[in-house]
């Protein structure tokens, strides 16, 4: 097996020493969807020591065009992504200690889940969880390699690489009311692989101790647009997530989403913190092609989505009818709102 990584070691910036560092690396992958599949496969093939991959979802037919770890049989068996990912990744490289955990990552469990890893690879599908992970990684003092993509467009931003660099909270002045998601505007697999590749290249540089400047970068594979912005000047001196007096607001209950199962109504209520403002008309327009029976008025947007009646109120509450399962409801919210 000694020749297994020879072509990677031949790559001069990594070399035999770099391979030893890769072997020691313990990586937390937040999400086992498209970016998680692609990034995990690259890292496991590269021979990292340990991978923990977490996800709350099961595999569906609509995942197969881009989530490269999964097969038709996984859909038929209704396997959780984390379970199927662990199985496939272990088959790819049995040297790597792979653990798949079926879990909804929240402010209650995020620190416990991430503790003991050297870095976090972002493969989540929504901004709430990214800000939660940003806070958790900063608190634990480990880097967070952000990545996101929809359509033919993706962006990456490695956080916690240098002292004095901005975190995700610094550069997001206000929380977006809604971001584009794969369930509202679709996605093609090339941008998944491209985005994951950029994340993993940065991860490999980090764990082999190659200095690099963390930049916010984007690419659109359909238009050819690309951007690379050095955001160092956006570091905020008083940032609640990364300054000396950080309070990690997204780890606290006040800034996190609240969930409640409404007894006897087969409905879950999700409530966002007041810092997240909702714009109902843009939201309604963005989901028009993905939902049915859409109505909106100054107070709410209502629609049907995957057999669930959904109502979003302007004050930041969403009712998801037809389920008592909080994870299902959060999943639907992430798909529609990002």
């Amino acid at each position: 097996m000694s020749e297994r990584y020879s072509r990677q070691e031949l790559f001069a910036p990594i070399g035999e020493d770099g391979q030893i560092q890769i072997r020691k690396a313990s990586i937390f992958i937040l999400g086992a969807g498209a970016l998680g599949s692609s990034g995990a496969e690259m890292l496991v093939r590269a021979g990292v020591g340990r991978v923990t991959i977490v996800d709350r979802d099961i595999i569906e037919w609509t995942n197969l065009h881009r989530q490269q770890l999964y097969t038709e049989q996984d859909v038929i068996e209704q396997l959780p992504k984390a379970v199927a990912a662990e199985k496939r990744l272990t088959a790819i490289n049995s040297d790597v200690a792979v653990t798949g955990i079926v879990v909804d990552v929240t402010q209650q469990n995020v620190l416990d889940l991430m503790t003991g890893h050297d870095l976090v690879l972002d493969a989540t599908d929504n901004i709430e969880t990214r800000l939660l992970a940003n806070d958790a990684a900063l608190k634990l003092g480990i880097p967070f390699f952000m990545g996101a993509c929809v359509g033919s467009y993706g962006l990456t931003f490695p956080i916690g690489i240098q002292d004095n660099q901005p975190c995700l909270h610094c550069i997001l002045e206000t929380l977006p009311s809604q971001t584009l998601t794969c369930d509202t505007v679709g996605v093609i697999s090339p941008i998944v692989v491209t985005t994951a590749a950029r994340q993993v290249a940065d991860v490999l540089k980090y764990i082999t101790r190659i200095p690099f400047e963390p930049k916010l970068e984007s690419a659109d594979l359909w238009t050819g647009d690309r951007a690379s912005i050095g955001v160092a000047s956006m570091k905020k001196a008083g940032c609640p997530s990364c300054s000396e007096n950080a309070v990690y607001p997204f780890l606290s209950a006040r800034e996190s989403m609240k969930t409640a199962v409404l007894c006897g109504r087969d409905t879950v209520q999700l409530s966002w913190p007041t810092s997240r403002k909702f714009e109902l008309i843009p939201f309604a327009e963005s989901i028009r092609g993905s939902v049915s029976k859409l109505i909106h008025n100054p107070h709410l947007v209502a629609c049907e989505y995957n057999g669930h009646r959904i109502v979003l109120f302007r004050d930041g509450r969403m009712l998801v009818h037809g389920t008592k399962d909080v994870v299902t409801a959060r999943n639907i919210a992430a798909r529609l709102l990002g």
Partner: protein
Amino acid sequence: MKRTIELNGNRYDMPAEVGNVQELLGHLELAERIVIVEMNRDILAKDAYDLPINDRDQIEIIHFVGGG
């Protein structure tokens, strides 16, 4: 006057009705999104989006998306 800028690495002919950065974001349907805008290598604060765009300006725009 015709203005040609470099937008996200590509040559871009400015529409006549677009005068400043805010109007460009609107034209690109990014006005409602969270964006970072760099103009001629400087990151623009939100209150500078009324800066006029001139011929040969270099603009990079990165918007945040949810998916993954």
